[in-house]
C-alpha cells in the first residue's frame, strides 16, 4: 500500500492542489485578520518534494502566490514554521543575527510510537482501532487542560496522517509565548517520564495536583476498555510481569498475580502510607506522551494541516472534538479517494448548487472539495477560522469601547 501510494502521488498531487486544497480558509487562518503587519508574509513554510528534496524558508506575499507556488512544486509534504522578523525567502539578505523567529502557534505532537512499551497490538508506525483509544484519551486530557487551566480558546486538533495527532493552539497569547513558557506548559502536561532504561515512568506523591486528578478521571473512563480488554495486559505472563514491575515490593510481597488489583485496593485502604499504585499504573499505560522539543522551539516546524502523508496518502484533517469518540483514522480520506470522487459525474442537484455558488473569478473550483469526502473536514476548518474571526471582531469592539470611555 505504501509503495502504491508513493507511485500515484505525482499524478494525484497536482489534482489535489488545484481543486481540493482549501487555500482560502488556509490563508485566512494564517493571516489572523491582518492585525499584525506582514504576519502572513513573514511566515516560514517548508516543502518536501519528490526524491526527499527538502526546501526551507519558503514565504509568500499573498494567497495567490502561495497557491501558484504549491501548484507548481506539488510538494509531498508541507510544514508550517514560525513568523519571522523578515520574509523567510529573503533571509540570506538580512544582516546576520537580525533574522529571528518571533511568533508561532503553541503546538503539541502526540505520536503512537511513544507508547510502544504499553501497547501489545501494534508497534512502531502501525496503528489499529484498539490502540487509537490512546489518542482519544490524549486529546481529551490535553484539550481540557489547555482550555480550562491555561485559558486558551482556539485549538485545532489534526490527524497527522499516520500514527498520531497534532494540536495547534492559535490564540494570540499562545503565539507570543517564549521558549521558556512553551517548555513550562509542556512540562506541566508531562506525567510519563523516562526512556528505555526506566521501568516505572510515573511517580505520584501527596498532594495530588488538581490537574492530575482531572487527568486521572479521564483515564479511568477508558482504562478498563483499553488496557484490560483491548490490550489484555493481564493476559500473558510477559505482559503481566510488566504491570507487576510497577508495583512496590511491600505490596507485591502480599499478593499473587491474580489478586493484584484487589490487593492494591485493600492494601491502600488499610495502610497509613500513601499509595497511588493503581493511579500510577493507569497513567503509565494511558497518559499522553508529548515530545517537549516540538513545543519548546518557537522556530520548530510542524506538518501543516491538509498536508498529504506521503506514505499513506491520507490527508492531515482537522478532528471534530464533538465527535471524538467516533473518529477513526482508517476512515480519513486519502488523496486517491478524493481525487477519484472528483471525477464522479455530477448529479442534477450538484449542478444546480455549483451554479449558485459560482465564483466571479472563474468558478467551479471552490465547490469541488464539497463533492468529496474532504468536505466535512474543510467545513470544520472553516468553522474554526470563522470562530477566531468572530472573536477578533469582538475583541476589537471591546478595545475600541474601552477607548471611547476614556
Amino acid at each position: 500500500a505504501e509503495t502504491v501510494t508513493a507511485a500515484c502521488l505525482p499524478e494525484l498531487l497536482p489534482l489535489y492542489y488545484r481543486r481540493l486544497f482549501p487555500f482560502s480558509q488556509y490563508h485566512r487562518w494564517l493571516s489572523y485578520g491582518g492585525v499584525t503587519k506582514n504576519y502572513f508574509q513573514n511566515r516560514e513554510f517548508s516543502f518536501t518534494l519528490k526524491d526527499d528534496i527538502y526546501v526551507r524558508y519558503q514565504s509568500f506575499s499573498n494567497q495567490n502566490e502561495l497557491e501558484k507556488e504549491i501548484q507548481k512544486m506539488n510538494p509531498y509534504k508541507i510544514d508550517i514554521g514560525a513568523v519571522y522578523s523578515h520574509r523567510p525567502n529573503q533571509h540570506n539578505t538580512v544582516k546576520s543575527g537580525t533574522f529571528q523567529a518571533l511568533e508561532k502557534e503553541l503546538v503539541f505532537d502526540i505520536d503512537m510510537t511513544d507508547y510502544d512499551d504499553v501497547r501489545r497490538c501494534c508497534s512502531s508506525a502501525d496503528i489499529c482501532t484498539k490502540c487509537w483509544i490512546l489518542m482519544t484519551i490524549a486529546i481529551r486530557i490535553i484539550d481540557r487542560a489547555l482550555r480550562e487551566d491555561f485559558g486558551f480558546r482556539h485549538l485545532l486538533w489534526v490527524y497527522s496522517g499516520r500514527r498520531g495527532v497534532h494540536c495547534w493552539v492559535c490564540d494570540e497569547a499562545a503565539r507570543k509565548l517564549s521558549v521558556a513558557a512553551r517548555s513550562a506548559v509542556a512540562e506541566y502536561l508531562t506525567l510519563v517520564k523516562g526512556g528505555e532504561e526506566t521501568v516505572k515512568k510515573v511517580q505520584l506523591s501527596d498532594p495530588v495536583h488538581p490537574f492530575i486528578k482531572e487527568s486521572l478521571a479521564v483515564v479511568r473512563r477508558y482504562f478498563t476498555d483499553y488496557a484490560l480488554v483491548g490490550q489484555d495486559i493481564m493476559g500473558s505472563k510477559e505482559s503481566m510481569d510488566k504491570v507487576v514491575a510497577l508495583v512496590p515490593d511491600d505490596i507485591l510481597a502480599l499478593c499473587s498475580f491474580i489478586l493484584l488489583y484487589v490487593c492494591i485496593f485493600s492494601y491502600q485502604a488499610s495502610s497509613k502510607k500513601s499509595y497511588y499504585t493503581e493511579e500510577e499504573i493507569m497513567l503509565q499505560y494511558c497518559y499522553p506522551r508529548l515530545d517537549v522539543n516540538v513545543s519548546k522551539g518557537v522556530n520548530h516546524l510542524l506538518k501543516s494541516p491538509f498536508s498529504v502523508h506521503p506514505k499513506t496518502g491520507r490527508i492531515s484533517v482537522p478532528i471534530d472534538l464533538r465527535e471524538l469518540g467516533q473518529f477513526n483514522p482508517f476512515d480519513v480520506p486519502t488523496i486517491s479517494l478524493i481525487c477519484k470522487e472528483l471525477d464522479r459525474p455530477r448529479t442534477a442537484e450538484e449542478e444546480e448548487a455549483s451554479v449558485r455558488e459560482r465564483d466571479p473569478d472563474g468558478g467551479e473550483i471552490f465547490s469541488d472539495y464539497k463533492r468529496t469526502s474532504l468536505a466535512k473536514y474543510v467545513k470544520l476548518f472553516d468553522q474554526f477560522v470563522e470562530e477566531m474571526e468572530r472573536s477578533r471582531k469582538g475583541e476589537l469592539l471591546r478595545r475600541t469601547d474601552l477607548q471611547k470611555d476614556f
Partner: protein
Amino acid sequence: MLFGGRKKKGVENPQTELYGHCLQLYTQPPLENISLVEFEQFAVDRMKLLKTVENLGVTHIKTSEDYSKKLHAEISSLNFPHRTEAVASEYEKRRKDHISHFILRLAYCQTEDLRRWFIQQEMDLFRHRFNDLSPKSKSDFLHRNSLQYETISVEEKKSLMEKLINSSYAFSGCTVEEQDFYKVPFQDALDLVRMRKVFVKDGFAYVPHQDIVTIVLNDYRTRLSKALALTARSLPVVQSDERLQPLLSHLSHAYVGQDYSIQKNIGKISLEQIDSLSTKSFPPCMRQLHKALRDSHHLRHGGRMQYGLFLKGIGLTLDQALQFWRAEFLRGKVDADKFDKAYAYSIRHMFGKEGKRTDYTPYSCMKVILSNPPSQGDHHGCPFRHSDPELLKQKLQSYKISSGGINQIDDAGFSLNHPNQYFSESQKLLTGGKEVKRELDSPRRPHAAAGSENSKAPPETPSSSNRVPQEVMDDLDSFFQEE
C-alpha cells in the same frame, strides 16, 4: 556606572529613598564618586560572598537551616546588609551591596559562562535574603518594586479551597485561609507552573504569598540577563581605563571551566579502537549509547547529538565520524542513499560545516542531566539521573565493578563535570600519565546526581565546585545500599 565629575542627585533624602529597603533589584546604577580603594574592596568582598554562596549551594540544601545560618554569618562578616531596620550602619552596607553588584556586572558580562555563573549566585543570594524577610517586609518590597499582582477575594478562595490545598505541599485548610493568594498570569510564574506547584486556571497561576519569591526571582533573572547583555556592549570603554582593567580581569578569571571545544587529539583515535575504548575509558552514559548503537544500528536524534559530539571531543575527525556512523547505520534499516541525504547533513552540522556553521561543543554533565530528558526509545541522558536504580546497579555490576567499588568514595583528585573529562583522565591514567591511588574502573559519580532519585524536587541549579563534597558522596552511598 559613571566615574568622575558626577554630582549627587539633588533629590530630597536620596539615600533614604534609594536604600529604604535592605533588599533591591539593582535597577538603577549608582551615580556617585568612589575611590579606587573602595571600588576594589567592595568588588573583592562581593566576590568572596558569591563564592561562598556557590560552595554552600553544593554542600547544602538551599532552604535548610544550616545553609541559612552559614550564609547569614558570611553576609555579616563581609559587612553586607542583613537587617531590616533603617539604622545608619545599615545604610552603609546597603550602599556597598548596591555598588559592588554593579562592579561585578562589569567583570561577569563578557561570556555566556561567566554570565550564567553570576546570575546563578546572585539569584541564590537574593532568594536567601528575601526568604529572611518578615511578611510585612516582603509586601513592602513587592510594592516598592511595582510587582502589583492582585490577591483573590475570600469568596474565590472558598470556592477553590480544595484545589488550592492540593496544589502545594504542606498546605492545609488553615494555611490556605491565612495566606494571601495572588492571581498571576501563568507566563510570570513559569517555574511554579512547570513543576505543578501551583493551581492554574484560565491562564492564571494562583500563587500563595509564601511562593511569591519564585515569581520575584524569575523577574530578577530576566532583568539581570538583559542588563548583562547591555553591560557587555559598554565594556570596551570601561576596559580601556587602566585603573580598572587589572581588577576586572582578575575577578572574571576566578571562574573558568574547560568546555572541550578545542580538540587536542584530532585524528589520534582510530575507528577500530572505539569498541575497546568504550569499555575502558568511556563514562557510563557514552558506553550505554555506544552499545545501543551497536545493538540496534541506530540512535535517535538526542543520542546522536550527545554521542556524536562526545566522539568529536575525543578527537574523531569529520571524515572518521561520517565513516563510523554510516557503517553502523547501513547495518540496520538505513540504505546508503538515505544516510547520505538525511543523516550525513546533521553530522556535518555538528562539526560546524553546515547551516550556521557553529562548531558545537560536547555536552557537559550538567547539560546532559538537565536538558532533553530521554523518553521511550531513547538511550541518551545520564544513567545516574535518568535510569532506574536497580537497572543501573545491574549494569555497573556487568561492567565488572565490584560492589565495594560501587559504594566506595572516590578520591581521584578531580571532580567530574564533563564526559570528555572522564575520557581524558581515564586515558591519562591508563597510559601512565598520572599518579593515582586506585584503579579507574570504578565510575565517578557526577556530584549533581546526589540524591536525585530520591528527592521530590529536581536538582535546582548547576554547580561548578572544584571538589566532590563528603555529604554528597554519603547520599549516593546510602542510595545504593537501600534495598
